[in-house]
């Protein structure tokens, strides 16, 4: 068995009676872009801070190439970090901010200059070297922070919601920068965010946190297409949850009865269900079809509203049991198959729908 690059072992952090992180265990290979995704208070930042050395875990360990980091103070961990708020040193120029980690390491002046020039060109801010941070926009400040965090070639870069203070357009711009920098430098990145789109765009893998535990870890596609719990299904992407009664499961394919009495078989079952158990059927809005095709299940709905969203349309429909669902056909499909308000049948592939136990504490209905 090869040794993992960065390893989090049964990490636990309690603040008095409240446990922020419960026994999180995670291996991160070198060069990976791993995102900790989750709602606020789910323990993702606490885990990151334990790696940074800002918080001592109650128990557990953090190993970098097999060596524990816990006894190493923050300033000797050699980890880069970009923070949520702008943390540039306000009295130092952009170039001196980037030079700071090299100066405290007493690197020779020629090396400092060369490295600062490299880093500023990496984040495309060469012409801003002599400016003070206050003279930069928020996006530029975060790029300088990125340059500063990478200036000493740290093996790991931590990013704690670095884009949350920026507006949408800037966020997308810096996301592209971060992807490019990850590609060019090959640094291992641990990224914390509560924004699922950001996580899906950036990451090699996503660890979805909930109440201090990792709910599911995998690629964005794993989490989106193969969610293991209804929380994951509700948090990543948009989901419809339909009340359903489980009838039987044979060879991983379940048969259920929907609230309107329709029977659907061939559903992917997550876990085991008893006959008659109350369950919820998750179907992605874009998995609904307006046209019938073989093996598809059907659902009788009344279309209430249709809105144009560019490449897709967003249809609000109501099942005969009175539950509102969200349907997102492509605009061309909607035009071809008449998605105007009124009663009609919609179709879905049972193999692309997932069955979860009901009720769930925090599962979100019809998230958008």
């Amino acid at each position, binding site marked *: 068995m090869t040794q993992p690059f960065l390893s989090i072992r049964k990490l636990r952090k309690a603040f008095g009676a409240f446990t922020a992180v419960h026994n999180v265990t995670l291996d991160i290979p070198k060069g990976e872009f791993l995102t900790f995704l989750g709602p606020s208070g789910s323990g993702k930042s606490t885990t990151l801070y334990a790696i*940074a050395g800002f918080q001592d875990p109650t128990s557990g360990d953090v190993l970098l190439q097999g060596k524990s980091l816990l006894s190493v103070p923050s300033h000797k961990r050699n*980890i880069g970090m970009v*923070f949520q708020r702008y*943390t540039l040193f*306000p009295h130092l120029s952009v170039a001196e901010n980037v030079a700071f*980690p090299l100066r*405290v390491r007493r690197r020779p002046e020629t090396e400092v200059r060369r490295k600062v020039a490299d880093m500023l060109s990496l984040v495309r801010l060469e012409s801003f070297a002599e400016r*003070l941070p206050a003279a930069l926009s928020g996006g530029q400040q975060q790029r300088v922070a990125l340059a500063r965090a990478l200036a000493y070639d740290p093996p790991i870069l931590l990013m704690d919601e670095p884009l949350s203070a920026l507006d949408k357009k800037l966020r997308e711009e810096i996301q592209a920068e971060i992807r490019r920098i990850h590609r060019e430098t090959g640094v291992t990145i641990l990224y914390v965010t509560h924004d699922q789109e950001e996580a899906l765009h950036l990451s090699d893998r996503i660890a979805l946190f909930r109440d201090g535990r990792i709910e599911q870890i995998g690629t964005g596609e794993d989490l989106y297409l193969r969610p293991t719990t209804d929380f994951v299904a509700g948090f990543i992407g948009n989901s419809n949850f339909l009340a359903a009664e489980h009838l039987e499961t044979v060879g991983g394919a379940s048969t259920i009865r929907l609230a309107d009495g329709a029977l659907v078989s061939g559903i992917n079952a997550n876990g085991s269900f008893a006959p008659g158990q109350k369950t919820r059927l998750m179907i992605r809005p874009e998995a609904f079809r307006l046209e019938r095709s073989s093996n598809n299940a059907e659902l009788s709905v009344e279309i209430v509203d249709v809105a144009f969203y560019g490449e897709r349309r967003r249809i609000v429909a109501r099942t005969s049991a009175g539950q509102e669902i969200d349907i997102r056909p492509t605009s061309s499909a909607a035009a071809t198959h008449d998605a105007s308000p009124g009663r009609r049948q919609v179709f879905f592939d049972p193999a692309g729908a997932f069955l979860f136990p009901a009720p769930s504490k925090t599962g979100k209905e019809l998230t958008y």
Partner: protein
Amino acid sequence: MSVEAQQGITTSRIPAGLGGLFPALILIGLFFVVPVLALLLRSVTDPAPGLQNYAALLGDGTYVRVFFNTFVVAFVVTIVTVVVAFPVAWMLAIMPPALASILFGIIILSMWTNLLTRTYAWMVLLQRTGVINRALMGAGIIDQPLPLINNLTGVTIGMVYIMLPFMILPLVGTLRAIDPMTLRAAALCGASPFAAFRRILLPLSLPGIAAGGLMVFVMSLGYFVTPALLGGTSNMMLAEMIAQMIQSLLNWGLGSAAAFILLVVTMALYALQLRLVGSKRAAGGA
């Protein structure tokens, strides 16, 4: 019509405003400008017109030594005050607000306590048979009483104690404006706690140190009570000398000249501080 009305307002506003300021201007003129001018006048006319008072002060070694001594004391007091005040101010800046306001209350309460009382209290503590010397001797740390009073040590201790609030208050304001995350960022960049202090915290708190430091320095230059009670005869300060010139020697001209020199030096220092810190601030805010 509306243009005329507007003009009417703007033209009548200036005299109206000045009229309102008039009592205040008279007050400032009568109680601040006139006395200083009278002081200046006296210093060059008493006992005879000319600059002989200034020549006497700056030409006599004894007087020059008093000036020098005054600056040394004020400088030492300022430095010690900064060193003692900084950790207190930092603690006040980062501690929970409820606790900080209690500590602020205690510091301000000491400012409100009578100055003379506090200085006499220090005499009791510092004298040869005082609490400190007896405690140290009782513990066997020293066998001779330490000379803590009637010298520079006594003056410094007493004055630092009195000046501390004037340093702590502006410093807390500056330190509170520093984002603690900046220091975490410095730590992850590889800065040891000392390097983070020297390269980040200290430069960022410089405006507060300069503001408090100037206040302490200027107040110390003209201080009378504490040096008179805790100091010795060999290191007299300027305020004591002025008191002696006027009370004992009745030499108003010489006393005025000494006071005027002190005023000019103080103003020069203030101008210097404005130049140094003011320009740095402007650059930082650009």
